[in-house]
C-alpha cells in the first residue's frame, strides 16, 4: 500500500515539477531557476509537513508515503541539481556552479528549518 501511495504521490509531484520547468523561461548555460525553485519550495513544505506530523500523534499512516516520499520527494530532485551544477562548471562557469550548489544546499536546509518553525510558531 505504501508503495502505491508513493507511486501516486510521486507522479503528482513530478508533474508539478515538470509544470514549473515548462513555465519558466530557460537559458542554456544560465542559472537553473526551475530546479532551485522546486527544491527550495519542496524543502520548505517538507519542513511544514514534519512540523504538522510531529504535532499529530499518531500520524495518519498514508501521510508519509504519499506526501513526504511521494509528492514532495517527486516534486524535488537531486539528479537535475547535480547534472546542472556539473554542466555549469563544464562550460567554465565555475563560480556560478559553486554559487548554485551553495544556494541549493544552504537554502534547502534553511527552508526545512523555516517550515518546521512556522508550524511550531503557530502551534504555540
Amino acid at each position, binding site marked *: 500500500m505504501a508503495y502505491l501511495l*508513493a507511486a501516486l504521490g510521486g507522479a503528482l509531484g513530478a508533474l508539478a515539477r515538470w509544470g514549473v520547468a515548462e513555465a519558466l523561461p530557460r537559458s542554456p548555460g544560465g542559472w537553473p531557476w526551475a530546479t532551485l525553485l522546486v527544491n527550495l519550495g519542496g524543502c520548505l513544505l517538507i519542513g511544514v509537513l514534519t512540523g504538522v506530523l510531529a504535532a499529530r500523534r499518531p500520524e495518519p499512516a498514508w501521510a508519509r508515503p504519499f506526501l513526504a516520499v511521494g509528492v514532495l520527494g517527486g516534486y524535488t530532485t537531486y539528479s*537535475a541539481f547535480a547534472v546542472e551544477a*556539473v554542466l555549469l562548471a563544464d562550460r567554465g562557469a565555475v563560480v556560478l556552479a559553486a554559487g548554485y550548489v551553495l544556494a541549493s544546499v544552504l537554502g534547502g536546509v534553511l527552508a526545512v528549518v523555516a517550515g518546521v518553525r512556522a508550524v511550531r510558531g503557530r502551534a504555540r
Partner: protein
Amino acid sequence: MTALLVAVGAMAGAPLRLLVTRLAARSHHDPALGTLAVNVAGSAVLGVLLGLGSAPSWVLALVGTGFCGTLTTFSAFGADVVRLVEERAVGRALAYVTASLVLGLAAAAAGCALAR
C-alpha cells in the same frame, strides 16, 4: 503525451526510492544512507542521458524528468540533514552533506563523460 511519460517514469522512481530507504533502515542504517544511494545513482543515470546530447525527447521525459527526477529527492536530503542536526549528530550531518555533494556531483560528471 509528455505529461503521461513524466508520470509513468515517476511511478517507477518514487516506489524504488521508498524501497531503498526501507532497505537501509532494515539493515540498521540511517534511512539517509538510502537517500544518498538513490541520489548518487539517479545523478549518474541523468548524467549519461544528458551527456548523450541526442536522446529523443520522449526518453528525456520518461527517464530524465520522470524516473531520475523522482528516484532522486532534494526534500528528503534537506529533511535528513535537519533531523541529524536535531539528533545532535552534527558530524554525521556534515558527512552526509559532503558525501551527497562529492559522490552526487562525481556521479553526474562521470555519467556525462561516459556518454560523450
